[in-house]
């Protein structure tokens, strides 16, 4: 418990620091006085717009997407007993990616709310396929991962095909494939919030049951945990969260895969602790990755997925060698 509180406290402190960096630093410099005035809503109009309409929505978008992906990965890994569980890798984000590609290509014309709702629905279709395969007795984690990777590859191919057919080769499509928070405003962030809420409402009551799933379906059922129902709800929650994340930021890789493993290193292997810590940990990692993506090559920036892959790949190799 002490370790859990320490980690949670440290993450909240790092989160606040990241938010401050996100608001204070950028191509347009703000001195401390102007920054403080803008945060308190008293500054000049340009500083106010810069902080409240440009930088803060982007920071909140990164926090939201990181929290969604962290939770989504944790739910997938625990409910399918698969260390490769990741919304991107398992194809959950694939359906949402197709919807986003249709929107970028101009085929699908809908507002932010409609777009995010369609993304979540498409993601749930992928989640349904994974839940169906995962419920079959005797399916190995490797086979499930192969099915997920195949679904994901299929969806990515479809999304790329849609973008190519529509001749969208702009930075917009690069940011979509690599994931980006550039130019995200409140109109992108606010529609995603209810889906984070739905994901939390679905996932939190499952926490103790997810621990029992680690024992295998037969033993878990004997403990009264209804493994198929638990898995279906967990994967659905993962689909909602993964779909919402793709709708906001495109395909941000590695966060969903890496965060549950890092959380396990930090707080042990009780799924309840891992799931709760995955929320701020995912938010912290994504927020700092986005800061690196926008600040290192200022005034231009790189897709955030590039940073998460650069940092995530060596970390994942370390985790795989040390823990798995």
């Amino acid at each position: 418990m002490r370790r859990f509180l320490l980690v949670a406290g440290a993450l909240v402190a790092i989160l606040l620091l990241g938010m401050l960096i996100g608001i204070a630093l950028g191509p347009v410099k703000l001195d401390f006085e102007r920054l403080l005035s803008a945060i308190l809503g008293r500054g000049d109009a340009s500083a106010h717009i810069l902080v409240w309409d440009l930088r803060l929505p982007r920071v909140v978008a990164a926090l939201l997407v990181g929290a969604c992906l962290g939770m989504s990965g944790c739910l997938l890994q625990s409910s399918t007993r698969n260390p490769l569980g990741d919304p991107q890798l398992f194809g959950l984000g694939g359906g949402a990616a197709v919807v986003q590609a249709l929107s970028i290509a101009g085929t699908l014309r809908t507002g932010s709310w409609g777009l995010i709702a369609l993304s979540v629905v498409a993601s749930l279709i992928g989640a349904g396929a994974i839940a169906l395969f995962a419920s079959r007795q005797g399916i190995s984690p490797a086979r499930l991962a192969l099915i997920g990777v195949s679904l994901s590859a299929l969806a990515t191919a479809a999304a790329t095909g849609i973008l190519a057919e529509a001749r969208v080769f702009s930075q917009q499509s690069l940011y979509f494939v690599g994931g980006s928070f550039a130019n995200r405003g409140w109109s992108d962030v606010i529609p995603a919030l209810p889906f984070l809420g739905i994901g939390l409402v679905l996932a939190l009551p499952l926490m103790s049951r997810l621990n029992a799933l680690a024992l295998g379906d037969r033993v878990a059922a004997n403990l009264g945990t209804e493994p198929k129902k638990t898995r279906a709800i967990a994967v659905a929650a993962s689909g909602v969260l993964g779909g919402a994340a793709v709708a906001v930021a495109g395909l941000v890789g590695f966060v969903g895969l890496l965060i549950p493993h890092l959380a396990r290193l930090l707080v042990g292997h009780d799924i309840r602790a891992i799931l709760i810590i995955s929320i701020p940990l995912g938010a912290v990692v994504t927020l700092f990755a986005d800061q690196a993506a926008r600040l290192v090559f200022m005034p231009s920036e790189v897709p955030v997925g590039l940073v998460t892959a650069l940092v995530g790949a060596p970390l994942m190799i370390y985790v795989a060698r040390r823990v798995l």
Partner: protein
Amino acid sequence: MMVNLEALSFIRRGKSVLNDVNAVITDGALTCLVGPNGSGKTTLLSILAGELRATSGGFLIDGRDASALSQKEATRYFSIIPQDVQPPPHFTVFELVLLGRMGRFQPRKSAFWWRLSEGERNAVHSYLARCQIESLSQRRVEELSGGEQQRAWLAFALAQEKKFLLLDETLDGLDIIAKQSFFRLLKDIASEGKGVLLTSHDLDLVTQFADKVIVLNGGKVSYEGPPHAKLRFLFFSTDSQRSPCQ
């Protein structure tokens, strides 16, 4: 407490797996279910645990028909350790047994590990001590030897505090010393009031330790009664031979 199997049959994909099985399993006794591979032992355990439904016939628990119990209701009476059980990754023995306590409650009400009461902690330690693995409590289950793992699973099953333990070929792969020691432990646990139903191929150990033997052959009970020296012959017999006491 007594479980009466009454004309229990089970058909899978048109093939009869269990055919008119009649037998009695009581608490306070180590009952061994023996028979060749494919004789229906695992299926019988699955029916008792509520994982499968009998095609016809059924079973009574203390005279009450339990055939229609849902899997969730059946879990109140039986804790099962399947043949292919895998050690959960990263779990310590203490945590595994603690998770077994979950079977006593509705899962939603289970205690958070970080709010573990002294009573729960003591209960877990008592089951670890009962299975003689208290010194292993902080070791990872996956790092234990086969015999130690089986004791951890037994402590997990006991922690659920159900009346009957269903153990499916739990001893496969253990050396003879570990098997003997495990059989002795099961016998002691049964003598303290639990009903233990164990499927096994070790006829010598079954003869030595079991209070009662049920021989399944081709889905039928070919013998039910106390163990005796001619068990090996019954193992391969297809003729129904009942104990004189039945």
